[in-house]
């Protein structure tokens, strides 16, 4: 079946996105510094765009599809867990903050790895970081593309390969031609759709359920645990839920796709505004979407597959035209995450590998050509992998999340604020974080009742500090590179 009322808003949405891409391409062609423009949008983001690109990059298909599906089966305890994401709105910008922005300008850094390279002067760190970013974000991108294509598939009735092709073509074209500026501007549109869609669906669901009182009473009647903080089976312990503050709250500082945004805004005022706007937006989306998942239970009982809760609910409780707008929200969430990952992986390959190790003296024309080619090839490679997709989108996504956090968080934060942080400590902490995360996740998932990411984050901090102190004499004669 083909839902035209859903397809028309989606098409309109795509047209707007394309126009932004074409407009951004003009800027790319006329810019004096291609790298700064293509990969950072010329560091010109104002408060609203910065806030929206942060939350749109952060909020993905799992916030709109996977998350509400889990909330449907677990109850209000899952909304509580989702609210651990509120700090993602303010913590990154405050902690990386002005120091990161000032240093990024001073050294003209384009990528997060640029910052690490200048701070630690170590090829090992550059290469390990590049590999981590490419491997994890590539897999994360693939999961998101599968999610995007499945969404189109279920909304339009097209087959999976066709849906994948439409999704890939729409994202690839504007990202390749428009670069970061197109990504950030489309994120502003997509982020707004995400917020508005959430509010509409929340209101629609409450009305359809006969009001909050009636819905809560129905939940208690089915299983009182749905309204407790502990989950339907009492499986959500306070310790376990609290450790999500690391994975999806403060640990977000270590995500390269988020951190790079903290070096691309215009001035201090943009940052102040973005903190407020971003926190309001992320609070609305995460609270709204997950609560919707819980409220959906009495409204539409008996849905077996979690991922179908949100689309089915939307079509059920909203009038057709409005449903189309709301269903553009998960689309927007997916696209806005994918476009950020694509441009980031491309910048890693071009700036951190090609320009550092393959062709250091490349001319502007060569860099331009390389950037377009690399972005296109990566995009197409993802499509090929996504044709035979693995399951468990949420799991893959979270794995990439935790892995990158464990690798980067301390190298970035301590590198920025701790004088004694040195390359040996950073390398040791990167390897420790990564290895511990994989070992724990595979052999002792959620060890000691904490999310798998908790111990690697703590362990890599300890290793970082100990190794940096022990090896301090080796680097004591070197100047602090950030002060040069």
């Amino acid at each position: 079946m083909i839902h035209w009322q859903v397809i028309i808003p989606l098409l309109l949405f795509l047209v707007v996105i394309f126009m932004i891409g074409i407009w951004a391409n003009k800027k790319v062609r006329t810019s004096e510094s291609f790298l700064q423009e293509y990969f950072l949008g010329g560091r010109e983001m104002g408060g609203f765009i910065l806030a929206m690109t942060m939350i749109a990059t952060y909020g993905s298909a799992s916030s709109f599809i996977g998350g509400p599906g889990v909330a449907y089966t677990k109850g209000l305890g899952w909304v509580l867990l989702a609210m651990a994401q509120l700090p993602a709105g303010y913590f990154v910008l405050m902690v990386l903050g002005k120091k990161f922005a000032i240093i990024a300008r001073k050294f003209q850094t384009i990528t997060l790895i640029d910052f690490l390279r200048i701070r630690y002067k170590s090829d090992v760190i550059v290469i390990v970081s590049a590999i981590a970013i490419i491997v994890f974000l590539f897999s994360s991108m693939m999961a998101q593309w599968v999610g995007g294509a499945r969404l189109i598939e279920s909304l339009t009735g097209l087959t999976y390969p066709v849906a994948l092709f439409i999704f890939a073509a729409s994202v690839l074209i504007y990202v390749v031609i428009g670069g970061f500026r197109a990504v950030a501007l489309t994120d502003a549109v997509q982020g707004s759709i995400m917020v508005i869609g959430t509010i509409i669906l929340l209101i629609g669901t409450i009305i359809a359920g006969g009001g909050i009182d009636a819905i809560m009473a129905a939940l208690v009647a089915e299983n009182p645990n749905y309204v407790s903080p502990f989950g339907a089976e009492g499986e959500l312990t306070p310790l376990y839920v609290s450790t999500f503050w690391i994975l999806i709250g403060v640990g977000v500082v270590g995500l390269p796709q988020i951190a790079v945004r903290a070096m691309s805004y215009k001035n201090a005022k943009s940052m102040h505004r973005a903190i407020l706007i971003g926190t309001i937006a992320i609070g609305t989306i995460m609270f709204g979407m997950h609560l919707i998942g819980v409220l959906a239970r009495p409204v539409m009982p008996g849905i077996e597959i979690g991922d179908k809760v949100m689309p089915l609910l939307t079509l059920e409780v909203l009038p057709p035209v409005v449903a189309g707008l709301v269903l553009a929200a998960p689309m927007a969430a997916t696209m806005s995450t994918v476009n950020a990952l694509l441009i980031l992986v491309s910048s890693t390959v071009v700036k951190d590998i090609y320009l550092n190790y393959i062709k250091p003296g490349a001319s502007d024309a060569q860099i331009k050509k390389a950037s377009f080619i690399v972005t296109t090839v990566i995009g197409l490679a993802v499509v090929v992998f996504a044709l035979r997709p693995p399951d468990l989108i949420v799991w893959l996504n979270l794995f990439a999340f935790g892995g990158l956090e464990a690798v980067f968080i301390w190298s970035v934060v301590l590198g920025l604020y701790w004088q004694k942080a040195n390359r040996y400590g950073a390398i040791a902490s990167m390897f420790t974080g990564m290895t511990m995360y994989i070992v724990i996740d595979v052999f002792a998932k959620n060890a000691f009742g904490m999310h798998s990411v908790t111990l690697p984050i703590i362990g890599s901090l300890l290793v970082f500090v100990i190794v940096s102190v022990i090896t301090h004499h080796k680097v004591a004669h070197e100047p602090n590179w950030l002060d040069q």
Partner: protein
Amino acid sequence: MNDKRFKIANREAWIGVLLVMINFAIWFGFAYGLGSGDPTEYTYVLGFPAWFFYSCIAGTIFMIVLLYVVIKVFFKDVPFDEEEPKS
């Protein structure tokens, strides 16, 4: 380098850490402080269980207001491009 801007930045970073701790305390305290009893005997506020209302709704609104105040009062507007600010 004793760039004055970095002093401001350091202080703001610590404020960020402090805010997360406050946020976590509110979230955790209300959720498990009010929500640990028998779910059939919860009190309700505006239709929601009290623990949920205070932890996830009122707590979030409080954090946003707090952020607004903190930014107005403590966050400084510094230039990013100049090497050394004048003062």
